[in-house]
């Protein structure tokens, strides 16, 4: 039956992967169907894991289903900025000792999992909304809450509803100063904050081959900001090369059928996209950089699971090299993982950042979540490559966050106001 489903030309990626991976794989599931998936990897982090641990204890489950498939990641506030956070981190380490599950400290979960564990065709649930990042390499990956995570730890399974799908056809070539983040921002601005709610997004078209795995990860990660359940790049030659280099094998390489039916279809000509900025308060208030240029900023943040990868830091370094961060403005640069951090030091990026006057921190979610390493005070303004600009996200509820690519954030750090990165590239 599995082979038949794999070859079925009428199925979307979501229909296909759920039908193949569902218990028994005995039938084809269509949007709206509810079924149960066995889980290959379960992740919780330091702001969802402690609650899952509490719930797991209250359920009274004696053991976890498979400790090798459960990852606890301390990333959001690492290392602990205060005693209260430290106590919750301690709770996680104690759980790791008791149940033998995996512990990761000091890399952002999504980047760590992509670098080390995710493979195409796997089923990954994470107690973190940006878990959908792993769709960048053709995995079923989506976010859940803490209680459902505790249920996964207990049983290794979880219910899913088959989502409807959206197709985005990417064509054209990047113009100077435009990056993956600008594409996904443009898309969110088009469909709105809930434009992908309950849906699976498939990124297709001739321009996909030009996107690095890191750029696809940025797009899949940030797609969450329109509410999607999955955000998928099918396996192609780049994906295969990525996993060959890491010596990891696919579980399934799933391709949507040519006759699959989509709820909506969008065409994006990358050549027409310019640097994009989302105005404070809502992720879908997306403007061209020229419309907000000149807005003074107190801080520029380059980092997060959306845009803290090596290729992001390379662009930031290219812009900052030979320049100084404007006096009165802070520039905080935070890598997404330990390996990104190491690479940035080894290849001289760290030196460029420090010479520019930026702060270069350890790998963590950092300023994005407003607990440490760049918290905003009353009425402060930040331009940030992180995913969210909601009220109080990075600190005081009167502070304001503009979202952009790392390039736009770096250019803005130099000028102390929102700036067009194309002048520096």
């Amino acid at each position, binding site marked *: 039956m599995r082979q038949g489903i794999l070859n079925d030309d009428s199925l979307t990626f979501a229909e296909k992967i759920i039908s193949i991976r*569902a*218990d028994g794989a005995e039938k084809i*599931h*269509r949007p*709206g*169907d*509810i*079924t*149960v998936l066995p889980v290959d990897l379960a992740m919780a982090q*330091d*702001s*969802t894991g*402690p*609650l899952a641990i*509490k*719930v797991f204890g*209250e*359920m*009274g*489950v004696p053991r976890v289903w498979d400790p090798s498939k459960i990852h606890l990641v301390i990333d*959001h506030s690492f290392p602990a900025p*205060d005693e*209260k*956070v430290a106590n*919750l981190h301690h709770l996680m380490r104690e759980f790791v000792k008791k149940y033998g599950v995996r512990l990761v400290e000091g890399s952002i979960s999504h980047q760590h999992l992509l670098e080390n564990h995710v493979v195409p065709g796997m089923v990954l649930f*994470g*107690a*973190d*909304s940006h*878990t959908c990042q792993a769709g960048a390499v053709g995995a079923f990956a989506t*976010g*859940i*809450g*803490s*209680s*459902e995570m*505790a*249920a996964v730890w*207990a*049983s290794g*399974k979880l*219910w899913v*509803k088959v989502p409807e799908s959206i197709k985005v056809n990417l064509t054209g070539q990047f113009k100077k100063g435009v990056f993956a983040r600008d594409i996904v921002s443009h898309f969110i601005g088009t469909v709105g*904050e*809930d434009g992908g*709610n309950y849906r699976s997004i498939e990124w297709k078209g001739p321009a996909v081959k030009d996107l690095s795995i890191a750029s696809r990860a940025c797009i899949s990660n940030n797609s969450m900001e329109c*509410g999607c*359940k999955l955000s998928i790049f099918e396996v192609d030659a780049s994906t295969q090369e990525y996993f060959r280099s890491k010596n990891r094998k696919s579980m399934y390489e799933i391709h949507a059928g040519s006759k699959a039916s989509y709820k909506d279809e969008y065409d994006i000509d990358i050549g027409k996209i310019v640097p994009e900025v989302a105005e404070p308060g*809502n992720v879908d208030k997306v403007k061209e950089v020229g419309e907000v240029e000149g807005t003074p900023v107190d801080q520029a943040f380059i980092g997060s699971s959306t845009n803290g990868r090596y290729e992001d830091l390379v662009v930031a370094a290219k812009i900052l090299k030979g320049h100084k961060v404007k006096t009165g403005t802070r520039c905080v640069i935070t890598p997404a993982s330990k390996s990104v951090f190491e690479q940035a030091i080894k290849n001289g990026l760290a030196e460029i950042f420090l010479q520019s006057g930026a702060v270069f921190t350890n790998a963590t979610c950092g300023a994005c*979540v*407003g*607990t440490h390493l760049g*918290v905003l005070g009353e009425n402060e303004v930040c331009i940030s490559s992180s995913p*969210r600009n*909601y*009220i*109080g*996200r990075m*600190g005081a*509820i009167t502070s304001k966050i503009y979202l952009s690519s790392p390039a736009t954030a770096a250019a803005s750090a130099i000028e102390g106001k929102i700036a067009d990165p194309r002048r520096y590239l």
Partner: protein
Amino acid sequence: MTSPSVLKGRTWVWPDDVNTDIIIPFRFKARTNDPVEMAKYAMYGFDPEFYKKVKAGDLFVAGKNFGGGSSREQAPVAIKYSNVAAVIAESFARIFYRNCFAIGLPALEVPGISKQVKQFDEIEINLQDWSVTTRDGGVHPAVKVPEFLRGLMREGGLVEYYKRHHNFPWETLETKAVAR
């Protein structure tokens, strides 16, 4: 704990796109594992004093996409432990909606409801019929939800369900097509 089948209460009316950062900011929820403490920060992004103003049995009525953004279960937990009895919205963000059932907080999706209700209206929710009765007597059916999820909600969420049944509601589920 089993929920009563009719909930009556006064409403707090919220706009479209209320995200989980507004419902409980990260910096508070990341520093406690105590639901009573979380409730002190409920709706902080709109009103840091909300927890002093809310009364037991109050109901939320929101616009579209309530609970968007982060997966944080602390958001519905903060609402539940503020003693808000149920959340009604034009639509919910996916993870928030799942979390409501997982923790036993009634969440009803009722298209058009935000235009039918004003702040502090007295309204009624029937969890048996899965409908909302507004002040003018109008009955508004909520979007249907699979029975296993309503059962989970009635039993008070996953902890209570597991303690009683020693399994999870979907483990005994016949996989089948549903309306939506």
